[in-house]
């Protein structure tokens, strides 16, 4: 999975978005210019229309 952007279709928490996308691998997310670790912000509300950038952490070597 590379860096990708998705639009939030309805208000939901970060936890709900992660569950919906079945994301279990390490990731950062960017919303409205703010970058954060989802597991430190599970309760944060994402608004309908927000563009969320999923930033997977990739290991090399």
């Amino acid at each position, binding site marked *: 999975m*590379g*860096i*990708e*952007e998705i639009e939030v279709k309805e208000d939901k928490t970060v936890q709900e978005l992660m569950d919906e996308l079945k994301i279990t691998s*390490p990731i*950062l997310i*960017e919303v409205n*210019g*703010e*970058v954060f*670790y989802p597991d430190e912000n599970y309760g944060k509300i994402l608004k309908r229309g927000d563009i969320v*950038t999923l*930033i*997977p*952490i*990739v*290991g*090399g*070597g």
Partner: protein
Amino acid sequence: MKVRRLNKVLLYDEGTSQALNIEEIAEYLRKKLAKVQVEVRGDPFAFYPSQDKVLDYAKKFASIKIQDSTKRMLSGQEPLYGEIEYEKRRILGKTRAFGILYDGLELQRILWQLILREESSLEFVHIFFNNRLFATWNEYDRRYHARVSLYGIPSIISTTGVVEAPAKPREYYILKQQYEMLGKDILELKDAFQGRFIDYEDERLTEVVKGYAMQAVFYALIGDPFCEDEGCRLYNAHWQEELIFAQLVSEYEFCPRHTGLIEDENGH
């Protein structure tokens, strides 16, 4: 594929090999990315001269050590006093990381805290160079794997990882076992394999790391740091001989596709 606009590449020296010339890497990046500012930030802890901050970060580093590569590290490990003291000396540049394996994802979380919030986005390519050996957990074989690099915000490139993570030639390990059984000097073996792997304080280290810095750049630019082409500097080498080929021997630096992306970025 979306190509992002880059604002700045920021390079940090979180305690590296003396063989690594970060200014030379910065100059290389400036040539490759003519429109992007490249700044050498140096020691990230220089912003935190207070003893409290040093102690705070020392505790964090000391708590992410992997004790057993077959057991997933539990977060919130309570470090010993000596481990914290060691990390304090490490932060203050009074000793170098050696023989310690860190959880790479946790290490990235700690280094992320050192980034200015206004520069915390994909427009800014933060690259921390260090000599900490780090690993990431693999659910499939349920063990940690040492890494050269970790790409994200920030990206981390380990000079110790360059030496230890990609495997040396198979025959090296067979002979190493024999040397150890016979009590022979391993340095002799290293001499026999000279040039076939990157060693500590290797004079080729800076040249090799330039390619990994470009992987961090491409990660921010297109979301994928790697290339399938074994001759491209973005090739994700798992063997030392692959690494040496991609970074030092190949007749070209980048494959046609990635060369094109660099040219596009420079407006050619």
